[in-house]
């Protein structure tokens, strides 16, 4: 039997889970091989994802029935435009994070083997496997296991630095995440017991909205909102994401909070679109708006760069759920709804790239200055122009300035908010953008200040450019938004164009 | 025939339960760890023994019956070991307590 790699039904998406998993196991066996294995695995994941993108745009959505058992008995992995876009982003961010981590966590430079050099690689690869599994799985219970894999590995990355604050942040994160898992699991249990299926597509066919379906959807959403740190369940995120070492922070903030949002989209837009009422959609939007405002205001008041960046994640995640009122309204906003759905995903992608860049740049600053206090950034642009430029590019994308990916996303959301007469969400978008300009201008103005920089430990240009590449990508996403836009339209759920009914 | 078997089972079960009850009462009422252990292990081993005996006539074949006996023996072994360990740790704790005063 010959491998037909070019066949349209080759199970590429399964590889994007199996490869990092296998690599994690090898990395756990031999810490000397780990950095190389991790990099190869991340590159293979990116390659598989890019090739899947080609297949998806030419042949439509790809499906793999695991074990050749079709649902409802088996589990289906499915790559639509959304899943593939997330896979590509996960590949890019993890390549960057692993490349940046090589120096700090390499067993070659540290003999005998140390705790963090050993455990970073298996855990980072488990995070990659977990988020990839969550992006492609179409089975509600399988998603639960994927989320747990991600959570445990991510919490361990939070604790990685071994400081007291890191352990506290990790415990806090786990307490929230485990509570979220319980709610999600309870919702899955009710769904299965009501409909006898776990597959999202089959659910869309069989779902009639009884009280147990409503309860299930509410419980699953509550759990996912906890895991994506949506206001008012956001308190765990900033300490956790800022306590982790820089490459781990990049994985956490760019990737780990994304699967819950994607699953939220799949549950509401694909599985149970008929459940959403206008009030509910507005309520989701209100939580998002609170997150945007509170996260931004708290970000302004921080004195450490990593905390600013982490609070900004809370704010940016708030924008994403504006997709519910904007894409999910009634028929009146029909032509614009699809734009809102695509816009929210553009924001997700550009946030992942920009946040990855920011945390890696912050990591370079920490290495250079020994801490991440804002006042120690003074004049750093002259010493570390690459990192500062990377931070600036990422900031442009986060503020939503043209021509970044963040701009494309916000522009699509803004258009649909005004076109559908929901101007209040437009105001949230604009005010949020202004606030992000304020909290990012603080660190940027310090970096580019004319005063001489304080003592700096040199960080290699190659490692600084990793953040720059991610920052550039978040800009390029906006400049060349045509191809990703078309990719996201592949197999877009009907509700994303027609609104919830 | 089956009536006699059932009656035997019920009778033995009741005796076993009585031992368990007595053991539990002892556990609750006796003053210190050693007395409690005494009540518990004696009553439990006998109680479980009677319950095993009661179930033997109900077993479908010799294989299952022997498994039941095995379980009883294992439990006794574990109980004996554990009560030894508990007693020793209680003794140790008493020693520690006596040193710094009440």
């Amino acid at each position, binding site marked *: *039997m010959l491998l*037909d790699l070019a066949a349209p*039904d*080759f*199970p590429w998406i*399964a*590889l994007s889970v*199996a490869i990092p*998993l*296998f690599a*994690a*196991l*090898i990395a*756990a*066996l031999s810490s000397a091989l780990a950095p190389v294995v991790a990099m190869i695995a991340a590159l293979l994941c990116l390659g598989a994802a890019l090739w899947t993108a080609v297949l998806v745009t030419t042949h439509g959505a790809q499906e*793999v*029935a*695991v*074990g*050749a*058992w079709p649902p*409802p*008995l*088996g*589990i289906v*992995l499915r790559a639509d435009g959304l899943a593939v876009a997330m896979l590509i982003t996960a590949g890019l961010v993890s390549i960057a994070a692993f490349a940046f981590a090589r120096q700090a966590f390499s067993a070659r430079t540290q003999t*005998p*083997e*140390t*705790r*963090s050099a*050993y*455990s970073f690689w*298996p*855990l980072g690869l*488990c995070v990659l496997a977990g988020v990839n599994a969550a992006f492609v799985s179409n089975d509600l219970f*399988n998603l639960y*296991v994927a989320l*747990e*894999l991600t959570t*445990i590995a991510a*919490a*361990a990355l939070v*604790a*990685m630095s*071994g400081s007291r604050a890191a352990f506290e942040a990790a415990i806090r994160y786990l307490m929230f995440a485990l509570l979220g898992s319980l709610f999600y699991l309870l919702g899955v249990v*009710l769904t299965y*017991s*009501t409909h*006898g*299926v776990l597959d999202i597509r089959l659910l869309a066919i069989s779902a009639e909205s*009884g*009280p*147990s379906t409503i*309860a299930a959807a509410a419980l699953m959403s509550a759990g996912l909102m906890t895991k994506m740190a949506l206001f008012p369940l956001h308190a765990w995120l900033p300490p956790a994401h800022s306590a982790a070492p820089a490459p781990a922070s990049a994985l956490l903030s760019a990737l780990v909070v994304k699967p819950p949002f994607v699953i939220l989209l799949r549950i509401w837009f694909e599985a149970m679109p008929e459940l959403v009422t206008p009030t509910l959609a507005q309520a989701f939007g209100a939580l998002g708006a609170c997150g945007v405002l509170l996260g931004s205001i708290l970000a302004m008041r921080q004195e450490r760069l990593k905390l600013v960046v982490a609070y900004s994640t809370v704010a940016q995640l708030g924008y994403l759920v504006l997709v519910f009122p904007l894409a999910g309204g009634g028929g009146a906003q029909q032509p614009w709804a699809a734009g809102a759905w695509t816009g929210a995903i553009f924001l997700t992608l550009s946030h992942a790239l920009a946040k990855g860049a920011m945390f890696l740049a912050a990591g370079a600053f920490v290495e250079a200055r020994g801490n991440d206090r804002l006042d120690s950034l003074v004049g750093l642009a002259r010493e570390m122009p690459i990192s500062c430029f990377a931070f600036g590019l990422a900031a442009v994308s986060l503020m939503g300035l043209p021509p970044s990916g963040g701009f494309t996303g916000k522009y699509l959301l803004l258009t649909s908010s005004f076109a559908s007469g929901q101007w209040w969400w437009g105001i949230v978008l604009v005010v949020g953008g202004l606030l992000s300009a304020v909290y990012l201008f603080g660190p940027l103005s310090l970096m580019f200040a004319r005063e001489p920089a304080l003592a700096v430990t040199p960080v290699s240009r190659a490692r600084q450019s990793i953040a720059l590449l991610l920052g550039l990508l978040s800009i390029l996403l906006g400049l060349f938004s045509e191809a990703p836009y078309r990719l996201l339209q592949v197999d877009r759920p009907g509700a994303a164009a027609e609104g919830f009914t | 025939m089956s009536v006699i078997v059932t009656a035997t089972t019920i009778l033995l079960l009741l005796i076993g339960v009585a031992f368990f009850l007595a053991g539990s009462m002892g556990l609750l009422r006796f003053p210190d760890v050693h007395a409690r252990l005494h009540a518990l292990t004696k009553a439990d081993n006998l109680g479980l023994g009677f319950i095993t005996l009661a179930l033997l006539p109900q077993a479908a074949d010799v294989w299952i019956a022997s498994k039941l006996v095995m379980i009883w023996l*294992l439990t006794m*072994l574990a109980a004996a*070991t554990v009560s*030894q*360990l508990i007693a020793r740790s209680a003794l140790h704790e008493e020693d520690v307590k006596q040193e710094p005063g009440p």
Partner: protein
Amino acid sequence: MAPAFSALTLFDVVLCVLIIGVALCSSSVRDLFAATVLLIIYGVFVAIAWVRLGAVDVALAEAAIGAGLTGVLLIGAVARLKITESPAAAVSRWQFAAKVIPASLGLLIASGLAYLVLTVEWRETLQAPVLANLPDTGVLNPVTAVLLNYRAYDTLLETSVLFAALIASWCTTHDDLWGERAGLRQHTRRAGILATFGRFLPPIGLIVGIHIFWAGADKWGGAFQAGTIFAAVWILAIMAGVIDAPNATGRSIRSFAVAGPMFFTFVALTGVLAQSFLIIPVMVAKPLTLAIEACLTLSIAATLMLLVLGAPRRSA
């Protein structure tokens, strides 16, 4: 059909009341050690409930993992923390809200669920296809068929969760203790009662574990239940001083922990030869399933043992 209200129903109701009572006690008792012991008792009662629901595989898992292993983990933590009493709660003006809000939420969810239980028509439609396709899976126990064939992908990710938890808990080691033996150093007298027990029990435990593993294919049991028993035997042997505790840097212990998921992932990857993923071909279904289960059992045993021993620590 059974009569509307039989002695068995009475038994069930009493069992449920007991379960709820023990759960309440475990939640409210002040002494932390007592709370832990009550949780173990709770687990045993829940295992009995699973037998009553005809779910013997779950009953075994709940007794071995839910009650036994969780209990051992908690007792170990309580002992290491050397605390038994909950600290006196700080008086704050939020204290009232901090109890009332969870209480009302708990009450709301419990009553909502109870309402749903009594009013909704529930559906279980997968049992028929599970049984219909059983011949293709090579096993006779439908639960094993689901775990290692129909939904083997869940199990693959689940073993990865265990693996991640192991690396994660290793990650809590003090930096200067990395490479030391796991857990506290054991001090056992060579001729002591525990040492004798530790020598006597492992062979029996191994036999029981192998039995549960082997039976899992056709009747009740399987990799997780058997793995837990092996882990218990392993821990006992270490506690009794029969064998040494492993250290996280050891090559062999890492191989043990990784072998199961690695073989499983490898099998999953060979599925791409058939343009799919995680295929268990019908022709070799039985031997392949048993091979996967054997590797998984080994890894589960090693992982659970290491999780119970915990990170290396300084002797006090």
